[in-house]
C-alpha cells in the first residue's frame, strides 16, 4: 500500500499523504511518511507511546503544521491544513485528549463538532441532538446535561458518535478508545465498521493490538518517528507487529525481579484510602519491591497513586515508613516522592536549566548556611548525568532541548538523587524511546535493590509484567485483583482488568457516581454552574438595590429624578467601554488600550465634528469611532495573533501609541464638539438617557445572540477552550482577531458617548478607564479566562461602580470608602465567581481536618 499509485483516479483515494515530516526543535517527531487510504478502508496506525502517531494524525487533521510534505483529502490538496479546512473537505478527527467542552451541554457539544452544512438551526439543536444520538445508539444520554457530568467513557463515546454521525469522507481516531470499557470498545469498533461500510476511510491510532485485528484491513507501524511500512492485516500477526513497534529487539530486556531476600519491611501502608475517582483501597508496599498498578485507562489508577502520597487530601489512613502522613509535605518528610507522568507541567521545570532541574530537590544537602556551593552542584549534576546516561549538550540548556527519554531521565535523576524510600511513579516510560526505556527499568530496579519501594502506574502491560514484582489491578476505583509478576503475561494482565470491567458493579462504584445528580448542596451547585449568569446578575442587582436603599435612607435625594438620570448618564460611557472590554475577555484575551481608543475618538471628534446637527454629527462620530476602532483593533490583532505577543503587552504598546497620537493632536483639552450632538446625546427618555436605552437593548440582543445562536456558541467555545474550539473547526484566531477589532470599535463608540460629558478633545480622560473597564465586566461575571459573563452584566457592573463612586457625593462620606468599596466588591465578585477559589478553600479545610484528625488520633494513641 505504501507504493504510490500514480494513475489512481482521484475519487478512489480518500486520503493521500506524501512525505509529511515534523521536528520539534532538535527532536524529530516524524520523519517523512506517506500513506494512501481508499474509501471504505479501515486502517490502523500503531506504535508505542511517543512514536509519532499523534503527530501524524495531527498533521492530517490540521492541528499540527508539517515542516514538509502534502496532504490530499479527496480531490483537494490542502495547502495549509487547519481543522476547519480539513473538516470542510470531509475529514473529521476524534482526538486523544478530547475536544468536549465540559461547560457546554451534550447537545451543544454535538452541534459544535458537526460540520456546518449538517447543522440545523440552532434553536432546534436539542431536538436534533436527541434524534441524532438515538440514531447512533447513544440515546441514553440527556442532551441538556452539561458534558462535565458525563463519565469519561461517555464523553469519548459522544465524540466518536459525533464524528461518525457526520458521515465523513475520512475519519481519524487518535487513541479514541482509551477511556472505554469493553462494551464501549465494542460499540466504537462497530461504529467504525458502520462508517466504513458507508464508504468512509477510517484511520485509527492505537496501541491495543487486540482492537487492531478485530477491524483493521491494513496496518501501518511507526517507531521513533520513522515509518515502518504498511501491511495487510491478514498477512501479519500480533507478534510481527510488536516486533515492528519495538524494533528488532522485541524482548525488551527487563532486569530480574526482586528475590525474596531483597524485599524488606513495610514502607507504605494505606487503609481505607479514598479520594476523587478511587477507593476505598487497602494497600501495603515493602522496601525493595516494585508494585505496578494496572487497569483500563481512567479507572482511578492515577488518583490512587496521588492518594498514596496524600495529594489532594484523600480520606483514610496512610502510613509511610512508620509515620502517619497527613499531607504531601509529611509524605516527603517520611521519604516518599511522587514522579508525575506529565513531564511538561508536573515533573520538569521547563524554563530552568537542566542543572537546576536535577538539583532542585537536593539544595539542602548542597548548601552551607543557605548558600549553594558551585562544586557540589556541578559534581551532583555530572554524577547524575553519567549515572543515568543522560545525553545532552549543556547542563545550562533547558530540558526542552532533550528528547523525551532524556527528559524523563532528568526527572528521574532529580527524584532519585534524594535517595527516597518510596517512589510513586506515574507512567515512567511514556513517550520514551526503547533504549532509554531499558535504562529507566534498570535504574528503577537498581534503586529498588538498595531498598527503594516503588509503586508505578503504567498503561503498558508488558512493562508491568516485565518490571514489577507485583501487579494490583484496578477497576472503577477499586483494587479488584492482585497478580504476582512471576508467571503473569501481558494477556493475563489485560484479561484481569477487562474481566473486572465486565463484572458486577457495586452500587457505590466511584466511576458511576459522576453522572448521577448529587443530592442537596451538590445539586444546587450544579445548577449554579450550568446557569451561572442568572444568580450573578441577580446578585449584582441586589447589591445595587441594597446600596441604593442605604443611600436613599441616608439622604433623600438619591432617588430623585435628577440624581438617577445623572448616575445613568455617568454610567453610560463606562457601560459601553466595559462591553468593549468584555468582547475581548469573552474570547480569553485582554485589551488595556480601550480607554485610550475611547479618548482618541473624542480627540478626533473635536477635530472633525465641531458643528452640525444631531443626526449627521452622530453618524460622522460613529464613523470616526468605528474606523479608528478598526485600525487600532487590527493592529492589536496583528500583534497578538500574528507576532504572538502577550495581549497585555501588545495592548500596552498600542495604549502608548494611541495616547501619543491623541496627545500630539491635542496636547491639552481643547477643541469643541458639535453642541447639537452633545445636547442630543444627553436627551432623556423618562429618567434614562436615550443612548443608555439603546445600550441596554443592544446588550440584550448581544446576550441573546451569544446564548441562543450557533455563532454565539462558537464564540463561546473559543473563550472556553481555544484549542478545542480550533479542533472543532472554529477559526479561533480569526475569532480572537475579530474580537480585538470589535472591542476597539465599541471603545470608539464609548468615546462618542463619553463626549457628551467631556465635550472637548482630551486624550487624558482615557487613563481613569484603564482599570474600571476591566473591573466592570468582572463584576458582571466575566472571567479573564474567557467564555463567561454577559453584556447585561457589564452594564450592571458599570452602574454599580458609578453608584459606589458617587456615594461620596450623595452621602458625603470620606471618598476613601469609595475606593474600599470598589476594591472590596471586585474581590468579593471574583471570589464568588471563581469556582477554583471554593475548591482551594475546600482543599485547605480538608487537609487541615486531616492533619488535625491525625494529630488527635496520635494523641489518643499515645495516651
Amino acid at each position, binding site marked *: 500500500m505504501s507504493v504510490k499509485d500514480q494513475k489512481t483516479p482521484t475519487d478512489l483515494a480518500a486520503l493521500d499523504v506524501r512525505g509529511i515530516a515534523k521536528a520539534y526543535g*532538535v527532536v524529530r517527531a516524524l520523519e517523512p511518511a506517506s500513506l494512501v487510504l481508499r474509501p471504505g478502508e479501515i486502517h490502523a496506525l500503531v506504535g508505542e507511546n511517543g512514536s509519532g502517531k499523534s503527530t501524524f494524525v495531527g498533521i492530517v487533521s490540521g492541528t499540527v503544521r508539517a*515542516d514538509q510534505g502534502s496532504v490530499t483529502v479527496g480531490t*483537494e490538496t490542502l*495547502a495549509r491544513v487547519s481543522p476547519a479546512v480539513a473538516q470542510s473537505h470531509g475529514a473529521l478527527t476524534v482526538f486523544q485528549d478530547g475536544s468536549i467542552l465540559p461547560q457546554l451541554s451534550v447537545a451543544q457539544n454535538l452541534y459544535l463538532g458537526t460540520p456546518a452544512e449538517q447543522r440545523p438551526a440552532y434553536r432546534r439543536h436539542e431536538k436534533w441532538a436527541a434524534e441524532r444520538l438515538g440514531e447512533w445508539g447513544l440515546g441514553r444520554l440527556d442532551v441538556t446535561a452539561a458534558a462535565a457530568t458525563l463519565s469519561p467513557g461517555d464523553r469519548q463515546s459522544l465524540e466518536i458518535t459525533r464524528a461518525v454521525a457526520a458521515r465523513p469522507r475520512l475519519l481519524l481516531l487518535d487513541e479514541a478508545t482509551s477511556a472505554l470499557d469493553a462494551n464501549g470498545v465494542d460499540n466504537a469498533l462497530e461504529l467504525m465498521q458502520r462508517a466504513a461500510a458507508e464508504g468512509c476511510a477510517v484511520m485509527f491510532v492505537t496501541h491495543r493490538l487486540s482492537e487492531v485485528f478485530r477491524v483493521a484491513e491494513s496496518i501501518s507501524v511507526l517507531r521513533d518517528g520513522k515509518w515502518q511500512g504498511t501491511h495487510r492485516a491478514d498477512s501479519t500477526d500480533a507478534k510481527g507487529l510488536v516486533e515492528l513497534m519495538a524494533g528488532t529487539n522485541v524482548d525488551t530486556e527487563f532486569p530480574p525481579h526482586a528475590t525474596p531476600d531483597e524485599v524488606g519491611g513495610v514502607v507504605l501502608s494505606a487503609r481505607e484510602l479514598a479520594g476523587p475517582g478511587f477507593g476505598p483501597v487497602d494497600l501495603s508496599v515493602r522496601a525493595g519491591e516494585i508494585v505496578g498498578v494496572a487497569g483500563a485507562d481512567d479507572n482511578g489508577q492515577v488518583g490512587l497513586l496521588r492518594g498514596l502520597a496524600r495529594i489532594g487530601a484523600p480520606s483514610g489512613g496512610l502510613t509511610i515508613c512508620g509515620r502517619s502522613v497527613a499531607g*504531601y*509535605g509529611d509524605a*516527603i518528610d517520611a521519604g516518599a*516522592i*511522587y514522579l*508525575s507522568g*506529565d513531564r511538561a*507541567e*508536573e515533573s520538569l*521545570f*521547563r*524554563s*530552568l536549566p537542566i542543572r*537546576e532541574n536535577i538539583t*532542585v530537590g537536593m*539544595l539542602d544537602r548542597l548548601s552551607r548556611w543557605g548558600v*549553594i556551593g558551585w562544586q557540589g552542584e556541578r559534581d551532583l549534576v555530572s554524577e547524575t548525568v553519567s549515572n543515568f546516561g543522560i545525553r545532552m*549538550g549543556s547542563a545550562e*540548556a533547558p530540558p526542552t532541548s532533550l528528547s523525551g527519554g532524556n527528559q524523563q531521565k532528568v526527572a528521574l535523576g532529580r527524584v532519585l538523587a534524594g535517595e527516597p524510600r518510596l517512589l510513586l511513579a506515574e507512567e515512567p516510560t511514556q513517550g520514551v524511546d526503547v533504549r532509554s526505556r531499558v535504562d529507566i527499568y534498570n535504574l528503577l530496579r537498581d534503586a529498588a535493590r538498595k531498598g527503594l519501594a516503588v509503586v508505578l502506574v503504567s498503561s503498558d502491560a508488558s512493562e508491568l509484567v516485565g518490571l514489577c514484582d507485583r501487579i494490583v489491578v484496578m477497576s472503577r476505583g477499586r483494587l479488584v485483583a492482585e497478580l504476582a509478576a512471576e508467571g503473569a503475561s501481558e494477556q493475563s494482565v489485560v484479561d484481569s482488568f477487562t474481566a473486572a470491567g465486565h463484572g458486577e458493579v457495586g452500587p457505590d462504584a466511584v466511576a458511576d457516581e459522576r453522572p448521577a445528580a448529587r443530592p442537596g448542596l451538590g445539586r444546587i451547585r450544579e445548577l449554579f454552574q450550568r446557569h451561572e449568569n442568572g444568580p450573578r446578575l441577580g446578585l449584582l442587582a441586589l447589591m445595587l438595590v441594597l446600596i441604593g436603599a442605604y443611600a436613599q435612607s441616608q439622604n433623600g435625594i438619591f432617588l430623585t429624578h435628577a440624581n438617577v438620570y445623572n448616575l445613568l448618564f455617568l454610567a453610560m460611557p463606562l457601560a459601553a467601554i466595559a462591553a468593549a472590554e468584555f468582547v475581548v475577555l469573552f474570547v480569553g484575551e*485582554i485589551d488595556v488600550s480601550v480607554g485610550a481608543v475611547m479618548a482618541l475618538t473624542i480627540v478626533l471628534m473635536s477635530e472633525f465634528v465641531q458643528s452640525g446637527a444631531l443626526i449627521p454629527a452622530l453618524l460622522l462620530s460613529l464613523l470616526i469611532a468605528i474606523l479608528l476602532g478598526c485600525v487600532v483593533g487590527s493592529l492589536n490583532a496583528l500583534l497578538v495573533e500574528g*507576532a504572538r*505577543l*502577550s495581549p*497585555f*503587552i*501588545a495592548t*500596552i*504598546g*498600542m495604549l*502608548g501609541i*494611541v*495616547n*501619543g497620537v491623541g*496627545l*500630539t493632536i491635542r*496636547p491639552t483639552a481643547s477643541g469643541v464638539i458639535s453642541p447639537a450632538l452633545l445636547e442630543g446625546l444627553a436627551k432623556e427618555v423618562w429618567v434614562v438617557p436615550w443612548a443608555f436605552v439603546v445600550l441596554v437593548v443592544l446588550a440584550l440582543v448581544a446576550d441573546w445572540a451569544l446564548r441562543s445562536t450557533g455563532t454565539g456558541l462558537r464564540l463561546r467555545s473559543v473563550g472556553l477552550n481555544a484549542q478545542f474550539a480550533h479542533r472543532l473547526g472554529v477559526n479561533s484566531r480569526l475569532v480572537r482577531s475579530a474580537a480585538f477589532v470589535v472591542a476597539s470599535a465599541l471603545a470608539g463608540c464609548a468615546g462618542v458617548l463619553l463626549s457628551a460629558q467631556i465635550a472637548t478633545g482630551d*486624550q487624558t480622560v482615557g487613563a481613569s478607564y484603564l*482599570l474600571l473597564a*476591566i*473591573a466592570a465586566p468582572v463584576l458582571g461575571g466575566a472571567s*479573564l*479566562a474567557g467564555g463567561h459573563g454577559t453584556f447585561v452584566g457589564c452594564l450592571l457592573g458599570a452602574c454599580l461602580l458609578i453608584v459606589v463612586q458617587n456615594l461620596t457625593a450623595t452621602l458625603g462620606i*470620606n471618598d*476613601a470608602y*469609595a*475606593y*474600599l468599596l470598589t*476594591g472590596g466588591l*471586585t*474581590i468579593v465578585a*471574583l471570589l464568588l465567581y471563581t469556582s477554583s*477559589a471554593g*475548591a*482551594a*478553600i475546600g482543599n*485547605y479545610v480538608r487537609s487541615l481536618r486531616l492533619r488535625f484528625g491525625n494529630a488527635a488520633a496520635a494523641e489518643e494513641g499515645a495516651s
Partner: protein
Amino acid sequence: MNRRDVLAQLRTVTPLKVIGPGVILILIFSEMVISGGLLAQSTLSTVLPPLSILIIIAIGQSFVVGTGGIDLSVPATVTLTGVIILKASEGKNSGLLEALIICAVACILIGLINGILVEGLRLNPLVVTLATGQLILGFMRLYGGEILPASNVPPQLAHWASDTIVAGVSYLFLIAIVFTLVGTVFLHRFVQGRRLVASSAAERSAFLAGLSARRYRILAYVIAALSYGLGGVLASGEVGTPDLTLGDPYLLLSIVAVVLGGAALSGGRVSPVATMLGAVFIYLLDYDLRVKGLSGGLREMVQGAVLVLGLTLAFVIQNPPRVRGLLARLRGSKAPQEPSAAA
C-alpha cells in the same frame, strides 16, 4: 556538539542577547543626544536617581511576573510608602526609623494579601492586584487624614537619597546595583532563592518535588511589595516632597521594563540583570526624547512603538520558519485558494 546544535543555540534568543545590545545602542544614542555627554556629572546625577528607583520597582515586579502573574498594585504601594514616611516621621529625623518599620510592615501585609488571594485562593492576579490597589488607596486616605503633618520627608532621608558618592553617581544607584546583584545571587546561589525560582517557574513540578510551592509563590508577592516599598521610600527621599502621584508612573513602566528584559508574562525565570537593563533602556529612551524636546505625546508614542517593534523583532528572530511561511503565504496566497473558491 555538531553544527546543528550550534545553530540551534545561536537561534535561541536569551533575554540578555536582545536587551544587552539594545542598551548599548541606547547608550550610544544618549551620548550623542545629551550635550554634555551621558557620563558628565551633571547628567549622571540627575539621571541615575530616578532610574535607580525604576530598577528597584521593576525588579520587584519581575518577581510577580516570574510566577506568571502581574501586579497592578504597584502605584498604590509606592504612593502609600510616601504617605507613611510623611505621616509617621512628621518630617523629623527621629521618626524616620519608625516610619521605615511601618512601611515594611505595610508592604509585607500588601504582599501577603495579594499572594494569598492569588496563590491561595487561585484568583486572577490582574484583577486581584487591581482591586487591592483600590483598597490600598482607600486605606491610605483613611490613614493619611485630611492633611499631612509634613510635606517634606525627614532631612536625613532626603539628604541621603540625593547624596552622591563620586562624580554624580548617587547612593541610590549603588543601592539599585547592589539590589540587582543581591537579587541575582539570591536567585542563583541561595537555597531559598532557588526554591523561589522553581516554585515560580513551575508550581506543580515544584510541589511534587517537595517544595512548599505555594508559600514560595506568596513570598514572591511579598518580596515584590517590599521592593515597591523600598522604591517608594527612595523615591520619597529623592523627590523630598512625595505626593499622591508618587507611584503613578510605575503602573505600566515597571511591567514594560520587565518585559523588555525578556520575561514572558506566562512566568518562568526572570533575570534581575535583564530587568535592570530593560529599565535602563526605557528610562534612557524617555530621557533622550525629553532632552530632544519632544512633547509628552510623542514620547509616549515612541515608547509604545519601541515596545511593540522590539518584541515583534524578538518574535521574528525566534521564529524564522514561521515568518518565512507567513511571507510565502502572503506571496502565494492566491494560487491554492482559487480552485476551492470555484468548488
